[in-house]
């Protein structure tokens, strides 16, 4: 009996492996490296779901060539992210790498990708370090440059005549970029600039400091779990009624569900929300919700666009990924319909896009969402592109 099972298994194994040997078109591989575990894991999940939906809608092919997405977890750590990416480059020979929630992880992985001749399409992280003099041909972003959204918010708050603001962010790469961007466009007085510890959960002490500074408004950047905690505690401290709260990347589809009613009446600035009114986006949100059962966030939207960008580039080169010059030139044209509306690349391969003001309100189903209020900056580029010397 044992011998029968063994030979049966051997026969099955041989037949399936022989079938694999039959010549087939080499699929193009895309490495999706994002934060899949821990508190940041929800954003990685949005990346994965957005990318897989895009590939499915394209029939599993990019530019007519069958494609495969390989998912890796950077655990929000730059060194782990680098290890994962290097494994994907050597073992899986990925031509494209996408995903990447956190800017510090992105800075760690960009060099091995460029050295291997592959292309990085960021669906989130957008540090200022590679937007200026150190810009790279083999880097594209379908998401944002970190300073852009806070710049829009700074512009809006100046135009509203808000005289003094207290600003807060976690003490990390993106946090510093966000507040720098805000201060670049906000012309009033910064009553307090507070950087908090990245693992800090309790903000009561900061609430007290805000109250002492007596600002007219508060502006924050607190992604993921940090945002859930800050916004809830801000409402609970009683400050929300006296001092309005403005934010970027804090109150979005990854966090609103967990924050609950504390978002009501707050403001957020961004380039996209699930409620953004254009036909491409409406179709995307509906397809996403149908397939996965939850609303996509800008992380999912940017990841979805990243796959479609790669597809547009490969369609133009006829599925050929070996000639980087032709591929990059094709991708720079960005000939695809983005879910955010009008989309084009700046000289540093970061997006030039519209920025809106959103207000957190209830829809007719009783759920909180980001309602599109007004356009703040049309076709806004980033402040570092002028230092970029790429051709």
């Amino acid at each position, binding site marked *: 009996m044992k011998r029968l099972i063994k030979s049966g298994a051997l026969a099955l194994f041989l037949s399936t492996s022989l079938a694999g040997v039959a010549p087939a078109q080499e699929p193009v591989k895309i490495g999706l490296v994002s934060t899949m575990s821990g508190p940041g894991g929800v954003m990685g999940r949005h990346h994965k779901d957005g990318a897989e939906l895009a590939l499915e809608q394209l029939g599993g092919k990019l530019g007519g060539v069958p494609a495969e997405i390989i998912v890796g977890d950077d655990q929000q750590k730059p060194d782990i992210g680098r290890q994962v990416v290097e494994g994907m480059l050597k073992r899986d020979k990925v031509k494209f790498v996408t995903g990447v929630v956190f800017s510090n992880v992105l800075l760690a992985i960009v060099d091995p990708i460029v050295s291997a001749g592959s292309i990085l399409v960021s669906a989130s992280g957008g540090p200022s370090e590679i937007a200026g003099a150190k810009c790279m041909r083999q880097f594209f972003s379908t998401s944002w440059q970190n300073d852009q959204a806070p710049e829009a918010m700074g512009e809006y708050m100046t135009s509203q005549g808000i005289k003094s603001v207290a600003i807060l962010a976690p003490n990390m790469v993106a946090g510093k970029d966000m507040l720098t961007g805000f201060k670049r466009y906000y012309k009033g007085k910064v009553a307090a600039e507070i950087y908090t510890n990245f693992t800090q959960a309790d903000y009561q002490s900061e609430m007290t400091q805000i109250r002492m500074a007596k600002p007219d408004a508060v502006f924050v950047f607190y992604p993921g779990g940090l945002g859930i905690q800050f916004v809830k505690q801000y409402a609970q401290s009683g400050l929300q009624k006296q001092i309005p709260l403005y934010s970027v990347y804090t109150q979005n589809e990854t966090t609103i569900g*967990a924050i609950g009613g504390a978002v009501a009446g707050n403001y957020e600035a961004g380039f996209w929300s699930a409620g953004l009114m254009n036909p491409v986006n409406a179709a995307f949100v509906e397809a996403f919700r149908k397939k996965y059962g939850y609303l996509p966030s800008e992380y999912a939207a940017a990841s979805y666009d990243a796959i479609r960008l790669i597809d547009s580039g490969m369609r133009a080169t006829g599925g050929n990924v070996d000639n980087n010059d032709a591929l990059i030139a094709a991708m720079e044209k960005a000939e695809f319909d983005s879910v955010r509306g009008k989309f084009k690349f700046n000289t540093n391969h970061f997006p030039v896009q519209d920025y809106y003001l959103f207000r957190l309100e209830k829809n007719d189903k009783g759920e909180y969402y980001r309602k599109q209020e007004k356009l703040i900056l049309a076709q806004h580029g980033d402040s570092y592109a002028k230092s970029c010397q790429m051709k």
Partner: protein
Amino acid sequence: MALLFFEQILNGVQFGVMLFLIAAGLTLVFGIMNLINIAHGVLYMIGAYICASVIQVTGSFWQGVVVAILGTLVVGIFVEVLVFRRLYHRTHLDQVLATFGVTMFFNELVRMIWGPTAIYAPMPEFLSGFVEIIPGSPFPVYRLAIIAAGLCAGAALYVVITYTRLGMLIRAGASNRAMIDALGVNIKLLYTVVFGIGAALAGFAGLMAGPLLTVESGMGNDMLILALVVITIGGVGSIRGALFASLLIGIIDAMGRSFLRPLLSTITPQTFADTAAPAIASMLIYLTMALVLIFRPQGLFPPVVR
């Protein structure tokens, strides 16, 4: 200025009390059973998840509290019988490895059941208001409730440890484990009971923290690190030490975060103060631990060992 100072002390006390609830269980387990339980943060997380889920289903805060404490107790005892019992005679390294594995297991399990997105933990209506203890500065009632609940739990623990037979056995076990074993006390049962007490306290801390913080997979990790610092400073096996050390850490943390930046900016340029102060403030707790380890390695209130 004095009002700001007092308010920050109050903030620090509240954070310290929450830490105490977690550290108390951890120090008991370490002191009595000589078990380093890295998985203690998991019990805190489970308490928060169960309470939030129950409230979402039934709408009642008290039901959430009862079910969460019982649920955490059940999970704690289950893991104790299944895993920890085999670890008591092993080296500390084996214990760390095993309990670390338990932590990863539960973090993933929670993600599988509830998903990776943080869940909504509603704050009970009767506790969501403000009280002006310090005139002009509203302080959330909920945080006062945490202080009160934590101190009550501490008092209850003190009464049990000092005035009951169980408490006597616990104190004896912390002093000399081999002796009480030789005296015929049912060690297995004692250990399970002690573990259960620790689990219930951690679960209670978790469910109280839920409405304030995020309820997500891995929420216990950072709290556990702080709890380990607390028991190192306070002395392993000592409840009094855990209380004192948690309050100390809570206050140092609150003070550091609010006063270090303005203090530093009087002697250094503002931009340096802006970036250096939060970094130094977050190090203060560990600096304190390092100082204690250098000058009084057994902790500030170690249990008397005969």
